[in-house]
Every structure is written in C-alpha cells, then in structure tokens.
C-alpha cells in the first residue's frame, strides 16, 4: 500500500504502539473507559470499558438491542448526529480522548473509518465513490492510483476496472459493500469500524469480506459488530460479548467460543438464547 498522509497525523505524536504480542489490555489502538451512552433517559451502553488491539480484528457480539452498534458508533462520533444521544466516560484513540472539546469530530472520522450495515454507495460513479473522501479532504497526489489501489485492496478491482465511470448503484449488494470498504480504505484510516457489514450479503460475499479483513489487518485495526457468531469465531482475534448494555466478557476469540468464563457467554455462543 502506498504510504501517504491525508492530514498531518496530529494524534500520533507519541511512540508507535508496538506490534508484537498484542494484548488488548495494554497495546491498544482504541479504548473505551467507563463509557455510558444514553438516548434521552434510556441507557443503551452501561459503563463499558474495552480496548481494541492494534492490527487485530475484534468482534462485538450480543443479542439485538444490547447496545453493540451504539457502542461501535461512539468510536467515530457517529452518535453526534442523534440529538438525544449523550456519552459519559472517555474514548481514547492513541492516547487522546476523542470526546475532548478540543478535538474536531471531522478529524476523528478521518482517522477512524466506518462501513455500515447496508451498503451505502453514493449515487455517483464507482471512481467518484472512492475518490470522494480523499478529494474533499484535500488529497494531493495521484488520485487514479489511489482509487486503483483502494479497489484492489478491497478485492473488487477486477470486477469494476472496466466500468469505473459507471454508476455504483449498478453493482450487486456484495460488490457495493466492497466498494464501501474501498472507499474507507482510500482514506487511509488506521481503524475501520464495521457495523454488521455482512448482514445484507449472501454467504459468498460474506466470505470475501471476511478474507478481506484478515488480509487488511496488517495495516488496519478492525472492530466488527456482528450478529453472526460463526463470523465472529471465523474472522476475529478477540471477541467481546455484550448483553443489555453491559460488557459480559471479553477475551481471545478461541477462548470465548471454546471455554468462556461466564455462563451467559457460554449460553449465547452455544445458541441457547439470542
């Protein structure tokens, strides 16, 4: 991947986090401390502390309505657009609390990208979908190359290289979702949040997205919210289980699925409820 900085890396003035022997509790790209999120008076996320290891894939699982999507959206301040939502606690990205009033939320979203549940390509051409983010953020460089690299990284280049200037809405759902991933990759974000990215996709496309994450984790940190427990066990390094707004258990994925410490986790991963 080409090395380029879209924005001066103002969060990253300290030392680079170490890449070896990742233990999420120490070597984290992103962490939540005592995070409570409310919609009006309703508590959606209740005092959750969690750290995501750099260059690893962390899955967040849990039954519907457990607050996992709300929690994920807090990491790039997407909850800002819900007027009733409020957050307590701190979310640290490379040591800086992204909810500090001095931090620009736009800058946060440049560094922490997001892929949504439903593919949401812009009603523009495939090329423009990928080029859009870098362009509005003042990217100076070879845009064609950036678009090609991003589409290649998202494993969709071969399918779209002959129709780059056709509408993105002509693509299939799985292709659209990979295009949205390419769009996020073009921003060179360190962290990519994925909010049930495969729930609208068929198993084949789902497999491709999972392979993609495994390939791209060399350069990115992934956090994925998923309903699909097989997906969590196949594609993630760490798994967090949430229920009713609380974090129940967080550990290596293998342990979570084979030998969880908590009875609720065991019931959930073995399909006894949820």
């Amino acid at each position, binding site marked *: 991947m080409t090395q380029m900085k879209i924005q001066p890396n103002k969060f990253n003035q300290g030392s680079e986090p170490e890449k070896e022997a990742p233990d999420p509790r120490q070597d984290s790209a992103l962490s939540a401390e005592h995070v409570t999120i409310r919609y009006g008076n309703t508590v959606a996320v209740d005092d959750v502390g969690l750290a995501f290891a750099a260059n690893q894939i962390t899955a967040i699982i849990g039954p519907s309505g457990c607050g996992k999507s709300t929690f994920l959206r807090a990491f*790039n301040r*997407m909850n800002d*657009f819900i*007027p009733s939502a409020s957050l307590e606690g701190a979310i640290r990205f490379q040591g800086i609390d992204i909810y500090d009033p001095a931090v620009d939320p*736009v*800058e946060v*979203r*440049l560094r922490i*990208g*997001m892929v*949504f549940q*439903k593919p*949401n*390509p*812009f*009603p*523009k051409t495939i090329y423009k979908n990928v080029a*859009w*983010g870098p362009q*509005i*953020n003042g990217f100076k460089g070879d845009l064609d190359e950036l678009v090609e690299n991003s589409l290649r990284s998202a494993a969709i280049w071969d399918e779209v290289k002959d129709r780059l200037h056709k509408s993105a*809405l002509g693509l299939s759902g799985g292709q659209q979702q990979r295009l*949205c991933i390419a*769009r*996020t990759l073009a*921003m060179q974000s360190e962290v990519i949040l994925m909010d049930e990215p495969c729930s609208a996709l068929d198993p084949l496309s789902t497999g491709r997205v999972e392979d993609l994450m495994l390939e791209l984790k060399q350069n990115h940190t992934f956090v994925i919210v998923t309903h699909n427990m097989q997906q969590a066990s196949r594609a993630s390094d760490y798994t967090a289980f949430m229920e009713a707004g609380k974090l129940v258990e967080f550990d290596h994925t293998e342990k979570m699925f084979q030998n969880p410490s908590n009875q609720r986790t065991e019931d959930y991963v073995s399909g006894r409820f949820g």
Partner: protein
Amino acid sequence: MNILAQKKSRWLEGGIHGFLFFCAFLSILTTVTIVVSLVWESIPFFFEVAPLDFLLGTTWQPLIVPREYGVLPLVVGTLQIVVGSALVAIPIGVCCAIYLSEYASPRMRKIVKPTLEVLAGIPTIVYGYFALTAITPVLKSIYSGTETYNAASASIVVGIMILPMIASLCDDALRAVPGSLRQGAMALGATRFEALTRVIFPAALSGITASFVLAFSRAVGETMAVSIAAGATPSMSFLPTESIQTMTAFIVQVSMGDTPRGTPEYHAIFAVGMLLFLITLGINMVAHRVLRKYREVYE
C-alpha cells in the same frame, strides 16, 4: 357440494368498482371538455387573425381601433413575471429548504413549516394589494422613476407566493435522500456542508429542479396579483419599472369588461387561454419527466 362451485354474487364490489371508475373518468372528462371549449371558441379568432400574426406580432391592441393581435407583448410580460419571481423565490426557497432539512432543530421546523404553509394559503388578491401598497412604495423610494403599476413589484410578490412551494418541495426532496448517504459522507470525514453540497444536494437535484418547474407553471398562471400590481399595458420593453400585461391579466381585463360575445376580441381571450394552456402543459410535461428520473436516482 363443492365449495369452489358456490360463487357468491358480490354486487357491492362491482358497485364500488363502478363508482371509483366514474370518479377517475370525471377528471378526464373535465380536462377534455376544457380543451374542447378552448379550441372551439378560439377557432373563430383564427378566421380573423392569421396564426402567425398572432404568435409573432409585437403589438397587442385588441380593444382599440386599429385592433392588433400580436401576442408577443403578453408573452414577454408573462416571461418577465416568471423570471423575476424565480430570481426572488429560487435562492430564498432553496436556502430555506436547506435550513429546514439540514440545520433546523425539530422545534424550529415545527414553527417554520406551518408558517410557510400559511404563506401559501393567503388569497392571491391579498398579495396583489400587498404589492401595490407595500412593495411598490418601497421600489419608488429606491428608484423614483418606478411606475405605480410595474413588473418588478408584481414579480416580487409572485416570488413570495411561489416561495413556500419551492421551499416545501425542495425540503421534501432533500429529506428523501436516505440518511445512510449522509452518514456515509460524514464517516468519510466530510463536514456537514460538504456532505450537503457534494452528496445530498446532487442526489436531490432532480426533485429540486422539479419543484422549480412546478413553481414556474404556477407563476405563468398567476392572475390576480399580477393584474393588480403590474397594470394593463402590453409592453415589449422588458423594463421592470414599467407597467406590463401578462396573458392571464389580459383574460381578466376582457372578461370583466363589457366585450360583446362573438367579437374577435372576445374570441381572443380563448386564443390567449389556449396558448397559456399549451405553455403550462409543456412545463408540466417537463416536470413530469424530471420527476420520473428523480425516482430512479437512488434505489
């Protein structure tokens, strides 16, 4: 006995079907009748005046001898109102819609939207006298050469009249853009304004254009306010400070006077009416096409 063989008579079903068909048919019948009467009454006019003289003539003087029936001054007057009112209504209406859909708090929306609708519900004759008694004096104080009856005042007031339509339809078009596109843009580090101008507005553009076209056709057809504020002087001068006459204002002038039935000037109102009908029909067909395209923009 086989249950499938017991066919019940559902006379009520049939009755409802018939009634609904009648209602639908009635609206078509009305349109056809209007067109037929327009054509029928304007045929005698075209025996007196050659169609080309009517369409291309530059003097409109149907009530005084020597009579002249060149419709262009009326078309120019109408065009002045349409362009002038668009200049007033489009920028304000679009900005208002953007504010409502993107920036206003739900509470603010609850105040502004009904206010706009009140604006749309004021009778046009009230607007006419508002132009005459409030807008024209202001224009006169700015430029003393402004006539009492003038195109600018009428344009401004028609602009105010079509403003709610533009604001409301543009607001609908902007709000119809899926929230997922807005979020997608924001997640790529766009500011609110960038998301608006570079994703949401382009996605809503055909709906916005359609609102303009509908507003144009309303401005073309506007009668009362224009008759009162712009006077009754057919003119080719394009000067907004002078009195003009639009097609609709002419129709009002003749139908309120004592023009005898059957004379060419009587038939002239139907000829002008038909031209007006064709113009608005053309505009509406364009609007319809644009709207159809608008439905296909995002699935």
